[in-house]
């Protein structure tokens, strides 16, 4: 790891000023940044430790029933907050299907949004990577592409965003509060991460010096609490990043879906909201054939990279399954053990 200057600002203004300098990086839990520094992938000349800033560590219930989650709230504390898990169960489930207990104890909300891709070539300084070194080329293109993005990829980059947490946040219309030298602004979580296009080195809308203050969920997101799940498929049954994942949330009244929400993980450089699939659900009776149609719509624009077409079919099945789980109802005990893609689907044969 390179040597660096370590600063611990006492106020937000100091943090923003210190973080705007060239070569500076914000440090929160450190669970992603320190690994990148050990590998020489990130070489910041200054670390600006945010963890002692006042006012960023609270989970606050909003006046109309939404929630505001401070950027420094630990992933574990959020998942285990009883009121939060009751009202936003799919978010708690997604948090608990990511990383491990010790990592969730250190990892923060802001850091989770900002975590870097897990593309293996990005982690290998000997490989060409446009994200690490703009214009260098993309070793993944002609290399091992099994896990590459099937939606929104570009010639320059085919990496995916690795966060589980962001997937239900995208489905539930979360908003990111951002602070910078010019004041504060808000961006929908759906628009916070950028698709790679010709500039894969730019991953979010944050400008240098800007930091995440909080993530908000609107009151309307809690209306899905009785039918909201997160389902993650990995290459082993625990402790791995998603091959594909899906958050599904339904509002069911008098036996019909009033409103449905779907977002996918592991398929693109950002959490992927599937609005076209949501439209398929509206006003319909929740049943397997409908869920399969919604899943087809969710992946309608997906394109394989190399031979990873299998991911598209897996993503369809995970969407259909997540919808079936959501229709069957949120588990009574919260936060639940994360759903298994291998358990039988309620109300249907295995598969």
């Amino acid at each position, binding site marked *: 790891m390179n040597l660096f200057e370590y600063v611990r600002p006492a106020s937000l203004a100091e943090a923003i000023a210190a973080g705007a300098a060239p070569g500076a990086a914000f*440090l929160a839990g*450190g669970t992603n940044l320190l690994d990148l520094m050990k590998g020489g992938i990130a070489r910041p000349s200054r670390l600006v430790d945010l963890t002692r800033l006042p006012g960023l560590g609270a989970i606050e219930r909003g006046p109309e029933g939404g929630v505001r989650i401070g950027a420094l709230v630990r992933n574990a504390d959020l998942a285990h907050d009883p009121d939060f898990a009751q009202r936003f169960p799919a978010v708690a489930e997604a948090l608990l299907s990511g990383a491990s*207990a*010790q990592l969730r104890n250190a990892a923060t909300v802001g850091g989770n949004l900002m975590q870097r891709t897990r593309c293996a070539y990005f982690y290998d300084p000997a490989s060409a990577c446009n994200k690490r070194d703009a214009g260098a080329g993309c070793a993944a293109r002609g290399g091992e592409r099994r896990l590459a993005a099937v939606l929104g990829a570009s010639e320059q980059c085919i990496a995916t965003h690795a966060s589980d947490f962001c997937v239900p946040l995208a489905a539930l219309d979360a908003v990111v509060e951002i602070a910078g030298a010019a004041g504060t602004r808000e961006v929908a979580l759906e628009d916070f991460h950028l698709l790679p296009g010709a500039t894969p080195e730019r991953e979010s809308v944050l400008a240098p010096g800007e930091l995440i203050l909080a993530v908000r969920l609107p009151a309307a997101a809690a209306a899905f609490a009785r039918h909201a799940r997160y389902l993650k498929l990995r290459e082993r049954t625990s402790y791995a990043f998603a091959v594909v994942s899906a958050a599904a949330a339904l509002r069911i009244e008098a036996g019909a879906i009033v409103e449905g929400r779907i977002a996918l993980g592991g398929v693109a450089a950002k959490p992927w909201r599937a609005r076209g699939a949501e439209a398929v659900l509206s006003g319909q009776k929740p049943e397997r054939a409908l869920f399969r149609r919604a899943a087809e719509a969710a992946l309608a624009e997906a394109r394989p990279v190399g031979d990873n077409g299998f991911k598209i079919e897996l993503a369809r099945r995970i969407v259909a399954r997540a919808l079936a789980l959501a229709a069957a109802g949120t588990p009574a005990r919260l936060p639940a*053990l994360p759903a298994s893609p291998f358990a039988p689907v309620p109300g249907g044969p295995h598969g």
Partner: protein
Amino acid sequence: MPQVSLTVNGKRHTVEVETRTLLVELLREKLGLTGTHVGCDTSQCGACVVHVDGTSVKSCTFLAVQADGASVTTIEGLAAADGTLHPMQAAFREHHALQCGFCTPGMVMSAIDLVNSHKERMSEAEIRHGLEGNLCRCTGYHNIVKAVAAAQEVMHGRAQAAE
């Protein structure tokens, strides 16, 4: 060089470190507490787990400067002064939950945090999920899960410690 003041296993220390010094390096190299192991050095395996202010973290992905002012507990801080083992240590011995022992300090520290944060009895599935951040290449996990299941009864006052 920055100074870090922290409490480790109940004892205050003030140590000079480089900014890039990891907590596990501070513990092993500056304080001689080599019970905390380094397996992967990339936050995967869990051999380096210690408690910082009562919760488990991977000390290979935690800067020493981040622990400034904190209270740290390592495997060396668990047994009583007279040598009486912590109920989790006793359960690991009783249930043969270790073979080579490399993963054991991290496994024990993770298991204690897991039990502390689950007052209700955990099922086998919950224990397995709770320990997913700790890799063991010897035991096949089976006896570790049994040890944790037994220790939770003792730690929550539902049974007596193993002799």
